[in-house]
């Protein structure tokens, strides 16, 4: 087990390294990075100063070295707009995004899991067809459009829910639903197919041969096995949600890291953009690692793998 964890850890470190290289590479490959690192409307003198400050006239490996050194110290630069340390800014916005993502995940599982299970158990039935339609719509409707429609309906027409901002439970409902909608469809689909596969397995057949009540066959034997891939996906999706919530957060003016990214591009605040992408990617790599390890805990087969 320990070797397994170490191996995964090694992969994660390599991924993080490659991530930083990718970001570094792209910033520099497209021309003059000084233009990005300087505030809009700066003079030539400013550009030169920036070049000096960031060592942009030095060789690439040296630049990369100092880049990594900065990152390791937690120095992601300064935001032009907010005039504060970017890392601090990011971390201050992160809780809001996590809250949103968690509520959205709850929505997606509450809708997706039971629907998927029922669709599989009553395969090709009415519920299954309805589920397929729902899945298709969920995967085809952009989440921000769902958000906009909800604002139109619940804020403008009905006046029940606030259309922007945060603070109360009412504020989080619509953005969470809009964000979770797509994932509910994805989770439903996966639950259904996973469940179908499990229901066709030999051990489920044996469970029925044992004369177990159908509820036990499905609830105990099928469910736990079917859940594994779904939970794996859900874990990864949680972090994904934090990152792709850019548009939903913008629509609802939700003060999370997604909105921060939007502000970064709207105000041409490049350090913010770069940091958001780096940190977002790092988060995903980390969560993938955690999920892999948790997987080993749930599934005894992996635990004993040499």
């Amino acid at each position, binding site marked *: 087990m320990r070797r397994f964890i170490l191996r995964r850890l090694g992969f994660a470190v390599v991924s993080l390294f490659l*991530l930083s290289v990718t970001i570094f590479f792209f910033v520099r490959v*497209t021309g003059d990075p000084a233009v990005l690192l300087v505030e809009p409307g700066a003079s030539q003198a400013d550009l030169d100063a920036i070049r000096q400050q960031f060592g942009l006239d030095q060789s690439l490996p040296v630049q990369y070295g100092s880049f990594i050194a900065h990152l390791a110290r937690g120095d992601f630069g300064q935001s032009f707009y907010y005039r504060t340390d970017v890392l601090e800014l990011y971390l201050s916005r992160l809780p809001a995004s996590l809250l949103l993502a968690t509520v959205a995940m709850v929505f997606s599982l509450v809708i997706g899991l039971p629907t998927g299970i029922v669709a599989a158990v009553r395969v090709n039935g009415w519920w299954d067809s309805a589920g397929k339609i729902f899945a298709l719509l969920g995967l085809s409707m952009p989440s921000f459009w769902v958000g*906009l429609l909800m604002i*139109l309906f619940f804020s403008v027409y009905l006046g029940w829910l606030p259309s922007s901002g945060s603070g109360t439970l009412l504020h989080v409902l619509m953005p969470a639903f809009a964000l979770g909608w797509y994932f509910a469809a994805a989770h439903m689909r996966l639950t259904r197919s996973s469940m179908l596969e499990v229901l066709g397995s030999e051990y489920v057949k044996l469970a029925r041969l044992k004369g177990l009540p159908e509820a036990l066959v499905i609830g105990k034997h099928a469910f736990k096995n079917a859940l594994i891939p779904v939970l794996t996906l859900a874990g990864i999706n949680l972090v994904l949600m934090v990152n792709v919530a850019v548009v939903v957060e913008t629509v609802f003016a939700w003060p999370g890291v997604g909105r921060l990214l939007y502000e970064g591009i709207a105000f041409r605040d490049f350090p913010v953009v770069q940091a958001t992408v780096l940190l977002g*990617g790092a988060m995903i790599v980390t969560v993938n690692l955690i999920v892999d390890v948790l997987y080993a805990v749930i599934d005894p087969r992996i635990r004993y793998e040499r």
Partner: protein
Amino acid sequence: MNGSRAAGLTLAWRFAAFRSEGFPLLPTLILLTLALVAIFANVITPYNPEIGSLGDRFRPPVWQAGGSAEHLLGTDHLGRDVLSRLIFGARVSMVVGFTAVIVAGLLGTGLGIVSGYLGGWVDQVIMRITDTWLALPALTFAIFLAAIVGPSEMNIVIILAAVYWTRYARVIRGEVLSLKERDFVRLAIVAGCSKRTIMRRHILPNVLNSAIVLATLMLGVVIVTEASLSFLGVGVPPPKPAWGLMLADGKKGLMAGYWWLTVLPGCCIVLMVLAANLLGDWLRVKLDPQLRQL
């Protein structure tokens, strides 16, 4: 469960062609119509989509009070005709969508074949890059790239291709790995064919199926990403009409109840994505049952 209701729903379902036997007539027709609209946009549109008359702002669609037959689907905040913008938006979406998907496909399939077949350090390098890029969510990555190069239609296509090729590479590589073990490839090796020839004549045609299926499935995703980028302002730049951009503009009028500026462009997006997804699903089942796990 009422028998006729179930039958009705199944009929509707079959018509929308989710069943693997039925050719998805409706989705294909939708895509063809959209393509035709996009191609003949200049001819069909009643007005210039980029110019509006400020005296005519925020007109609702014809069926609502205040609407007129002059602007069937109303006008936006600059007085531009919504229908014309939707039609030209179709062109933008189709062009960007198809081009990005094809470029990503070419790049991804090519690299997937090379990586899978040659193995060794080439494989390692390509796969590490692929994995890392796959770890980055597409939208975030695309926004990052757009922030660096600046928005333009061409840039968006390049960015989308750069972000999405990895999806192809992964899948194609997997297929190539199993194809490598097949007898006809081994025979070719024994017969002395060069690696390049084998990749071109034996491997490529066999992965084409998967590539096509992937392309169709990716189309929907790419269109939504493009719409998201345009909505955020880093996609297709104004005044060119992109559906995502229309949604961004529409948001301004949302609180005032100008619903058509939000609902209509969104419906177009959903229509196109839905059709692409249905077609892709059908292709997936039809062309290769092994791909069902995609």
